[in-house]
């Protein structure tokens, strides 16, 4: 069973909300979002008062993203930098260092509950971290050139709508700190969006309730749905760990196939940020039919079925429910 940890202390040296001069009211806040889901939250909170640049765009995989010099320049000129934290953005420390930014780098998972990466379900060495939970900044120090680690915490906190509300609150706090004149607007936008999140969560719970309990085990590519599982009671198995950085080994896949048969998994899904080949192979070997594409670590492009967070979560639960009940 996963352990939940209070997030506050997990936040390492990267997190800071320094005193920053408020920008002039006439200028929009220049906001950098590390990946597409955060950008969508920021857009809902910031509205017309913010200009948002997203580093890892739709369908992009932040686990393996390589920052460019242009990204460092973008971060260097930002007023606010919004990141997930929990070592999701493995590139963050080097990017922030290269940018020499004076903007606050705000970890949006701050103050929430964090799931531990259990590490025993077909994961890899980097996910079997020992006790400690130091921030990425500390983890990279004292290491050979360019090496970095993934932490012991599951970073995919947005997969729980309850946590999404915390992301939104933290974004509003960050925007208020940087632009006091717009604070009322940010709070009102956050409140309004929060109501939509509440409605979304109720929809997800209602959809899960329609799925028989003995059919609530499904397969995805990587362990991105721990929070969804924890919050809504669907069990996810995956050949890859919480990061897509390391490929699953043959023994991982063999163990997963054995577990799929034991647990009588109901459906299997590809993810938008991973190569579908492994999932298709597992589907072939287990006789499961691929039930569709789930969106895990990134939104779709604007023409896709998951162009916003609300659409993403609705698409995912609809796809899961449809595949299970149709199987």
């Amino acid at each position, binding site marked *: 069973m996963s352990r939940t*940890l209070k997030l506050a*202390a997990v936040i390492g040296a990267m997190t800071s909300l320094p005193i920053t001069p408020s920008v002039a009211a006439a200028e929009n806040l220049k906001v950098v979002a590390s990946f597409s889901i955060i950008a969508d939250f920021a857009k809902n909170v910031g509205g017309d008062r913010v200009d948002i640049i997203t580093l890892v765009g739709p369908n992009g995989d932040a686990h393996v993203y390589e920052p*460019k010099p242009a990204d460092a320049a973008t971060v260097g000129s930002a007023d606010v930098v919004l990141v997930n934290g929990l070592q999701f953005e493995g590139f963050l420390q080097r990017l922030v260092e290269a940018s020499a930014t004076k903007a606050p780098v705000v970890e949006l998972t701050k103050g929430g509950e964090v799931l531990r990466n259990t590490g025993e379900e077909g994961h890899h060495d980097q996910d079997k971290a*020992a006790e*400690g*939970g130091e921030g990425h900044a500390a983890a990279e120090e004292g290491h*050979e050139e360019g*090496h970095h680690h993934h932490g012991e915490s599951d970073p995919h906190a947005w997969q729980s709508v309850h946590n999404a509300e915390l992301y939104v609150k933290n974004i509003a706090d960050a925007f208020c700190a940087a632009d006091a004149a717009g604070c009322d607007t940010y709070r009102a936008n956050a409140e309004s969006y929060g109501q939509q999140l509440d409605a979304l969560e109720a929809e997800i719970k209602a959809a899960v309730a329609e799925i028989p309990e003995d059919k609530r085990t499904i397969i995805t590519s990587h362990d991105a749905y721990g929070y969804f599982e924890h919050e809504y009671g669907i069990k996810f198995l995956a050949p890859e760990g919480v990061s897509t950085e390391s490929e699953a080994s043959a023994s991982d896949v063999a163990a997963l196939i054995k577990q799929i048969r034991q647990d009588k998994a109901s459906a299997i899904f590809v993810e938008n940020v991973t190569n579908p080949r492994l999932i298709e192979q597992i589907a072939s070997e287990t006789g499961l039919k691929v039930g569709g594409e789930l969106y895990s670590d990134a939104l779709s492009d604007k023409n896709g079925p998951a162009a916003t967070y609300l659409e993403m979560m609705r698409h995912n639960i609809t796809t899961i429910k449809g595949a299970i009940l149709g199987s």
Partner: protein
Amino acid sequence: MRTNWASATAIALLLSLSTSAAHAEEVTAWRLFISDHADPKVTVIDAVDGGKLDTFQIKGPASLHRSESGRTVFAVQGSAGVVTGIASGISFEDHGEHGDIDVEAPKLAGVEIAGEKPSHFVDHDGDFAVFFDGEGVARIISEKAVLEGKSDFRELKTDAPQHGVAVAYGSHVLLSEPNREKPDELPVGIRVADKAGAQVGGIHACPDLHGEASSGNILAFACATGLLVVTHGDGSPAIRHLPYSDSLPDGKTTTLIGGRGLQYFLGNYGADKVVLIDPTIESDAFRLISLPTRRVHFAVDPVRAKFAYVFTEDGQLHQLDVVKGEIASSLKLTGPYSMDGHWNDPRPRIAVAGDRIVVTDPLQGVLHLVDATSFQKTGDIAVEGKPFNIVSVGGSGQTHEGE
């Protein structure tokens, strides 16, 4: 089970402190491997205290290459027709929340690969490919085999001798394609071969191919027309051509190095310029940077991702800000080293060892040390002969008592 993080942290901290006190020690080790311009030897210097660790006699003057892991250094002796593997003695083991360092004496690995005119050496994910120009043959060996002292290499032949290159790219090999009409000239493209050596797809045109580098998950070859950009495709390498932008003057890149920490490439472009390349964008992919005089050598900083370094013939080391695309600082280090004369005349080379930038000064027989943070010269290390090519290996990690 729910655990309050604050208490978990405290417990972890106590465990860490007690563990550290009893068993773990933080160790930093950096080594410089330096070849001589005239003599067949490789000198190993402890970059932390400046002392000489060893000197290895080899068969000819060498260019040096370090593996990505830093466990192996290769001495490519073109005139002697041999490549010699050296175990650096420094290795790391990733333990998730920390890394362990193992420091042993450097030694010849016991692996030599012989052939006519070895030239380009490429390490890709622990597989080394050496191209032997005189035969048009690539010999590929794994780092694991080298460190075990086994000369277990495999060969892939191209159609003709050429000044070529090969890259072991997962289950494929990328091989330069010789210029059939003018065999003495540079290769004209890249061929992809599968594990059995069979060609996959057509030839990817790359006229005057010279220069290869990796940065993150992108591999690039420099051509007269632009770059060939290689990424992992669905089942085989995906290769596309990135043409030089119209805004660039006439010229081409013939030496390419890859950024570490930030994904970019740095190449020469004309005698007194370098070009910063972001192959992931189509517009403004190339940023040209003029230098005060002709360029001698350049290197990226693997620790401070924002910086690369360029040495110019007026004896200056320049700190290049790759984010802004401009020279941030310059430091006079040596007397003039004119680029007139033979391309392989003894001239300075750059390596970065942790917080130090090290520049060879072959005519004076010294290594100049520059603090990478302040960009000020901090000292010299005397080296017998004409210290020429240089690579650094090292880092920090924990050692555990009793291991």
